[in-house]
């Protein structure tokens, strides 16, 4: 099974990678453009092979609470949805974060707000990176820009969630979800045994068998001082994550005069824009954050120190640009270009924008 190159949709790669990771359970509710995750899982019937549970819940609210329950037992559980579905899940996300239990959430974004459209969007950047649910919490937010990364980020997301006892999110979009590309899936790993979970997750609520004091997992703490103490502990974890886990890709930034910052689908489109620009003798580089939270602030500051201007391209009205501006401390012009409602810019469109907003200014 190892190293076999196959063609697969991004959504299917998520499903296959989760089975191969040895995930214990999936709870979800279908919504375009991510329904292939659930469809692929049901087609593969992993309950017969690895023993993984696949359950179509009655709603997104039910699904996230099933994830919450599963996560408390130290099992590797995940869900997937698209924008309106993820809005429904926000209470659960906040509870997961406050309870310090690991889980993997996937949002294959579509155009909003509201029920919106079914095509690609990146308008949930704020929701994913700056909260969404209530309270001071963060998720680790991973932004895949290829089908291979869709597959790879499942294991990465789970591993980081368990390492820090936090929630990981894969923030994809409709285009990457529906796109079919070459992918090499990871090797099949066995699901962890109850004994392994007991060792790795001493906090889990999985039956103490008279061996240890009871574990209690709750997000409720009515004592203000204790709740403040909890918050300090959460914040310490977030600082640790910020220190260790930023990831980004730099393409042709060494000699570039202008830089595009983009993630996910737009980063792929921007790569083509770079090729077109370089053919015209315009030196453009690309900075692609792979973790949206923690945002690779230092890396961007360093990479952008000699550029004349930055164009931040997103499928929204201007969200990541705030982090870009903070990172470079507004030392150079930072312009935004967004398409929304499910529309996606083309490579030549971005080149024209780059000229208009930065080069010919």
């Amino acid at each position, binding site marked *: 099974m190892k190293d076999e*190159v196959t063609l697969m949709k991004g959504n299917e790669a998520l499903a296959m990678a989760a089975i191969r990771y040895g995930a214990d359970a999936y709870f979800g509710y279908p919504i375009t*453009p991510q329904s292939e995750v659930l469809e692929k899982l049901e087609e593969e019937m992993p309950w017969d092979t690895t023993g993984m549970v696949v359950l179509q819940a009655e709603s997104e609210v039910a699904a996230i609470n099933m994830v919450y329950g599963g996560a408390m037992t130290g099992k590797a559980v995940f869900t997937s949805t698209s924008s309106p579905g993820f809005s429904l899940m926000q209470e659960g996300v906040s509870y997961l974060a406050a309870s310090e239990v690991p889980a993997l959430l996937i949002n294959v974004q579509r155009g909003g707000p509201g029920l919106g459209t*079914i*095509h690609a969007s990146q308008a949930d950047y704020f929701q994913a990176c700056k909260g969404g649910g209530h309270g001071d919490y963060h998720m680790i937010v991973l932004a895949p820009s290829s089908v291979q990364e869709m597959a790879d980020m499942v294991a990465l997301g789970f591993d980081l969630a368990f390492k820090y006892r936090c929630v990981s999110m894969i923030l994809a979009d409709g285009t990457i979800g529906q*796109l*079919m590309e070459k992918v090499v899936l990871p090797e099949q790993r066995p699901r962890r045994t109850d004994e392994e979970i007991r060792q790795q997750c001493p906090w889990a609520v999985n039956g103490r068998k008279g061996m240890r004091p009871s574990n209690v997992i709750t997000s409720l703490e009515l004592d203000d001082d204790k709740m403040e103490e909890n918050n300090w502990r959460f914040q310490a974890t977030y600082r640790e994550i910020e220190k260790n886990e930023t990831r980004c890709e730099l393409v042709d930034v060494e000699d570039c005069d202008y830089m595009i910052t983009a993630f996910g*689908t737009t980063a*792929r*489109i921007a790569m*083509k824009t770079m090729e077109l620009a370089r053919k015209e003798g315009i030196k453009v580089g690309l900075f692609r954050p792979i973790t949206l939270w923690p945002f690779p602030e230092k890396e961007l500051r360093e990479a952008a120190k000699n550029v004349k201007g930055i164009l931040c391209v997103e499928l929204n009205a201007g969200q990541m640009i705030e982090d870009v501006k903070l990172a470079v401390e507004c030392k150079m012009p930072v312009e935004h270009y967004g398409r929304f409602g499910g529309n996606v810019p083309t490579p030549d469109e971005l080149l024209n924008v780059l000229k208009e907003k930065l080069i010919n200014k």
Partner: protein
Amino acid sequence: MINEIVIAGFGGQGVLSMGKILAYSGLMEDKEVCWLPSYGPEQRGGTANVTVIVSDERISSPVLNTYDVVVVLNQQSLDKFESKVKPGGILMYDTYGIHKKPTRTDITVYPIEATEATIEMNNSKTFNMIVLGALLHVRPMVTIESVLKALKKTLPERHHHLIPLNEQALNKGASLIK
């Protein structure tokens, strides 16, 4: 060599599956490939289109605005995509139901009578393989052997007996190019 292709037509004409087989054929030859469908309501009637890239180099953007090859199977798609063929590129269209022919002169235009050919073959389901055969005749980006291998890989075993029929359709398509 990079082949940036769009195939467009009515939902149900086999546009998406033709693109998928082309992409799989590229995979059989170890090429870089990607397949990006229009998804959602279009698949259930109305127009459907798919972008396929078959390349010897790493593929950057799966989203394109101009193409080396445009294959259109109805009038709406012809109207929409004629302007998106790169200068020097290829425009192939099925002549059935086309009342407004393409007018560009800086590209190579191949009208093919694919719908008529399905009647000769007495099987309307061979349509997309006839078109693919014609396409690969003018732009041999993958071999017919690779297409047959791809069919074997993508079709469920119970349909493998249809592979010879598909091969006939591919050959029929090639013969439509004068």
